[in-house]
């Protein structure tokens, strides 16, 4: 067994988990909304890409680019017309509503696409790989990882360097005062969720081309996303990437020892971090 190879595969898998988590982290950071339907929205986006690929014969990457504005619109409308109504001092209503949404999406997908597991085919890219000295990395996992890095760089630039990003941070700080500065918090929240859905679409592209998925795949993706966010420390996107990598490495190392231990090893790593660093590895200094 090649340990270097195992760890590399784990790191690259971590990129996928960071993609799952980035949207969740963004929405939580800006409006303290825990979206329990996040995993199901990833699966929904994967089905959307699948439909575009099979019905129009598009390349999956082109399909994802087309799916992005559609998912942005879905996220925007979802936040503006539904989730904004649940936000307030009480944290329970958004949890209940997104939990219900999760069930609705799963059953809606089950009705439309049956329970068969599906896959998005990316052609020859799927088996292509590059030799990196002692190890070999697949092109798709590499693309997944670098997409995650690119997404995090872009989100950080947006949040810390643009006026929309400043509005995100100001609204997250104090929505009432932000209103007095001419910001409409409801629209800022809608834009944030729309943006999160664009990230979700990128995550869905790599989820769908990497492995099989079916209408009930969402909740497990949500768990991985949560674990990555918590390991990394709330509020830090680079921390989320680190969290995803730790989760990914733990899973591949676990699987290398015994294939049955893959999932368990990831959860154990998460519990170990919670035990020794309850606020995550890179918590924000001010909070």
């Amino acid at each position, binding site marked *: 067994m090649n340990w270097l190879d195992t760890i590399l595969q784990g790191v690259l898998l971590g990129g996928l988990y960071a993609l799952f988590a980035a949207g969740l982290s963004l929405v939580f950071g800006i409006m303290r909304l825990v979206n329990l339907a996040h995993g199901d929205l990833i699966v929904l986006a994967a089905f959307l890409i699948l439909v575009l690929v099979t019905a129009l014969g598009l390349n999956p990457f082109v399909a994802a680019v087309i799916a992005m504005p559609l998912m942005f619109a879905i996220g925007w409308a979802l936040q503006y017309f539904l989730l904004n109504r649940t936000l307030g001092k009480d944290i329970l209503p958004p949890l209940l509503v997104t939990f219900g949404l999760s069930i609705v999406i799963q059953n809606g997908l089950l009705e439309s696409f049956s329970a068969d597991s599906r896959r998005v085919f990316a052609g020859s890219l799927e088996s292509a790989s590059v030799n990196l000295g002692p190890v070999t990395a697949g092109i798709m996992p590499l693309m997944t990882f670098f997409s995650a890095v690119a997404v995090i760089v872009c989100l950080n630039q947006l949040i810390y360097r643009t*006026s929309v990003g*400043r*509005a995100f*941070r*100001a609204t*997250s*700080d*104090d929505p*009432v*005062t*932000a*209103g*007095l*500065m*001419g*910001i*409409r918090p409801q629209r800022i929240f809608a834009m944030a969720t729309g943006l999160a859905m664009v990230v979700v679409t990128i995550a869905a592209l790599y989820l769908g081309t990497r492995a099989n998925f079916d209408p009930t795949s969402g909740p497990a993706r949500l768990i991985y996303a949560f674990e990555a966010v918590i390991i990394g420390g709330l509020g830090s996107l680079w921390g989320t990437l680190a969290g995803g990598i730790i989760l990914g490495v733990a899973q591949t190392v676990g699987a290398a020892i015994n294939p049955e231990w893959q999932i368990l090893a990831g959860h154990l790593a998460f519990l170990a971090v919670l035990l020794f660093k309850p606020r995550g590895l890179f918590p924000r200094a*001010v909070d």
Partner: protein
Amino acid sequence: MPILELDSISKKFGALTVAEQISFAVGEGEALGIIGPNGAGKSTLFNLITGNITADSGSIRFLGSDVTRTPPMARCLSGMGRTFQIPQPFEKLTVFENLLVAGVFGSRQREAEVSDRCAEILVDTGLIDKANVLAGSLSLLQRKRLELARALATEPKLLLLDEIAGGLTEGECRALVATIRAIHVRGVAVIWIEHVLHALNSVVERLLVLHFGKVIGIGKPDEIMASRDVREIYLGIEI
């Protein structure tokens, strides 16, 4: 034409009347001071004017149009700026970013267009050397100055100041008053709630006295301060 006009504004919180038939007008470029004992409804009156609270009855006109039911963001865009009694900066943004947010969203302009003006405001309000510091780390005086600077960044035609001089030392207060007077001289109308009377009276042209949600006097500062009701209610002087 008055810039702001309140006509019989009333508001109740349950059985408690916090504003009763309040009517007054503020002329363009005028400075009006508001005084009254604690709990007289002064900050509530500001909340009614900015739209954070909606009046039960009566109407508010701003720059000639009815804004009684207009949300706060729209009132800010049409030229109302406000500071809070307890400063509420965006703590995780830098001082300069606090102003940029207000400038970009409060006056619907691009960042490049507002950033020079924001820097000027920071110079005027004495905060320029704190521009890149997180707002959460400022002292009380600096926070009060930031409240003022951020309100100015929205390019207000009417500035509402809520006890901005409270809790400051004599010297700090004098410097702040000079800044406010300079803003007023430029033609910005000001409504200023304040307990520090000498600071208030050195800027405003008229005083309004509020007591249990009612206007009990409005007029020239010296006339108001001389009136029997005001001395009894506000200054607590037995006559």
